């Protein structure tokens, strides 16, 4: 339940709790201080009067002679005084001003000699002193009612009890106002954020130029939006490319089948069309296969890297492509230097090698050579494939590793494939902690380097 409260409500509740606590503490200490200090003052006065009476007694030889009403000089009301003689089995009053009945006398035996002690009974406070004077034991008592003090304290209590909630109420209203005010930009932020959907990721939160926390937050959110937008763009570009790539073979197949079906034809013609359709299906399959391969986040799940010998794999791939090279009139040569071991996945390395050598053959003119070299560079295993083919313009070079990127976008299916080859190679090399490097000059040739970890 508490967790579901909004920050605003929580802040308000905290505020109220803290203010209530502070007010209570303040009221309590005010009350206590007043109570204690007043009581102390009363006690001091009573003590002084007791001592005065004692002095008075000491001056008189006859105890009965003292005049207690002399003490009227203390402007202190109500003041009750009593002097008693301590006798066997009780007290005998010597002199007293209308000492209230309800004030119980202290048991003199419990009192230390010559020490003023205070006691309280009912709403009276009493100071008592036991003294020995001329062989007699006397008890001097002064008392006062602190009813007045009590009344004052009671009044204070009532006014505090009345005023505290009012203060609290105003403080709460004030806090609420402040919180509302400082949360207004947050509310605005939320409204704006709510309006942002996948199709308008280009909208940004406005900065208020105040450089405060809200602005900082807006900036961060804008940053996230920018990154999201880019990612989204890439994805939709990618799916656009996919559909475009698939539409070409589909169009070829559909037109061919429809046109063939429009009228009866020779058996041989049907066979031709079916073969051609199969070819298109092959193309589609290859695209789908490559796409699946690329879209997998990890190319090899949970498998440990193994020791792979590159020399053997290279000659194997070269042998595989030799026929195609010959057909295109390209001389494919492998220059290896013994065995080079890397840690990796054999299946993936084969695909990478095949793709780059295949590209070199595909984008070369008749009568040129493709050289495949295996070696080491800075202690790292390194395969270079260099050709004397068409080369890649500087403006395209940075992009050819992107999915579906082809320099000559239109010559789709007759030279090369769908433009996924180098993207796949790049991904494979990344997975091996290595990299793919391309160097090229248009009309001169291309050098592709695969560098392992």
């Amino acid at each position, binding site marked *: 339940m508490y967790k579901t409260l909004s920050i605003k409500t929580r802040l308000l509740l905290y505020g109220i709790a803290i203010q209530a606590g502070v007010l209570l503490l303040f009221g309590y200490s005010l009350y206590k201080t007043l109570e204690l200090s007043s009581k102390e003052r009363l006690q001091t006065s009573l003590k002084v009067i007791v001592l005065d009476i004692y002095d008075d007694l000491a001056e008189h030889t006859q105890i009965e002679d003292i005049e207690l009403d002399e003490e009227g000089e203390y402007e202190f009301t109500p003041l009750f005084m009593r002097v008693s003689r301590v006798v066997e089995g009780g007290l005998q009053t010597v002199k007293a001003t209308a000492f209230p009945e309800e004030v119980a006398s202290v048991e003199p035996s419990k009192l230390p000699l010559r020490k003023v002690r205070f006691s309280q009974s009912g709403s009276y406070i009493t100071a008592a002193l036991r003294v020995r004077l001329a062989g007699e034991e006397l008890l001097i008592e002064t008392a006062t009612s602190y009813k007045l003090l009590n009344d004052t304290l009671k009044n204070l209590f009532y006014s505090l009890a009345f005023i505290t909630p009012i203060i609290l109420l105003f403080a709460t209203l004030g806090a609420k106002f402040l919180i509302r005010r400082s949360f207004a930009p947050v509310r605005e932020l939320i409204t704006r954020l709510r309006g942002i959907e996948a199709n308008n990721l280009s909208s940004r939160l406005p900065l208020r130029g105040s450089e405060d926390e809200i602005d900082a937050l807006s900036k961060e959110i804008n940053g996230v939006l920018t990154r999201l937008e880019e990612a989204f763009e890439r994805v939709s570009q990618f799916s656009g490319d996919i*559909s475009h790539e698939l539409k070409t073979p589909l169009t070829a197949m559909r*037109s061919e089948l429809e046109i063939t079906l429009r009228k009866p034809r020779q058996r041989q013609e049907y066979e031709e069309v079916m073969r051609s359709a199969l070819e298109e299906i092959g193309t589609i399959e290859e695209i789908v296969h490559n796409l699946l391969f690329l879209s997998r986040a990890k190319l090899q799940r949970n498998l440990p890297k193994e020791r792979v010998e590159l020399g053997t794999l290279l000659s194997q791939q070269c042998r595989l492509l030799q026929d195609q090279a010959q057909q295109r009139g390209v001389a494919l040569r492998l220059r290896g230097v013994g065995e080079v071991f890397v840690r990796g996945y054999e299946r993936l390395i084969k695909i990478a090698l095949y793709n780059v050598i295949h590209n070199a053959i595909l984008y070369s003119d008749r009568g040129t050579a493709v050289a495949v070299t295996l070696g080491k560079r800075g202690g790292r295993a390194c395969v270079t494939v260099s050709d004397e083919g068409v080369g890649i313009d500087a403006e395209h070079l940075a992009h050819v590793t992107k999915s579906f990127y082809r320099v000559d976008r*239109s010559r789709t299916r007759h030279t090369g494939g769908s433009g996924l080859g180098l993207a796949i190679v790049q991904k494979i090399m990344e997975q091996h902690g290595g990299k793919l490097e391309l160097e090229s000059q248009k009309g001169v040739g291309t050098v592709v380097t695969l560098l392992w970890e």
Partner: protein
Amino acid sequence: MRLLLVEDDKKIAKTLQRGLQEEYYSVDVSHDGKEGLYLATTNEYDVILLDLMLPSMDGVNLCKALRRKRVHTPVIMLTAKGEIEERIEGLDSGANDYLPKPFAFEELLARIRVQLRTPEQGGDTLQVADLVLDRGKKQVSRGGVPIRLTAKEFALLEYLLRRKNAVVSEGMIRENIQSLDEDSSSNVISVYIYRLRNKIDKPFDKPLIHTLRGIGYRVGEDV
């Protein structure tokens, strides 16, 4: 009817060319943008079918260049890019229609027919006097009487009707009716004209097909 197909994918181009020829269109094919533009500006076509992604010059630029050169042949763009923005860009560059790939061949035919419609003809029909040709239904009738024509005769009649009241030379006919080229004996066109006359003019009072000796033919009511 003479069409120009500019499409870089050789297989698609070949297939469409064959399909259109079987519909008695004369089809020229180019796989390259600049070559396509050259053909479109030098020859006279009834409709141009244009792919967007082309080597040397893309379809949108080709179309713009064509319109700049004041060639107003109807252009139908064929492309795998089907996004609305791309369609708009294509149409804005001066194309008359836009057909996203993959398309049904029947639809392509229908859209070509739309482009072939002249303003005064509402639908797919062509008419001279009481002779009516319906390209969609592939029917011809005169004064309400249906006339059965072979596909080749139909194509020839359509060509003549589209240029009604104008003189058309044998050369023009040969260039525009692909199917007549197949057996290229020199008098093949006059043979077809003769057959057409037998079916269209003979049974009726007023002849509509006129021969201008040494010049060509003309379809229309007598002046």
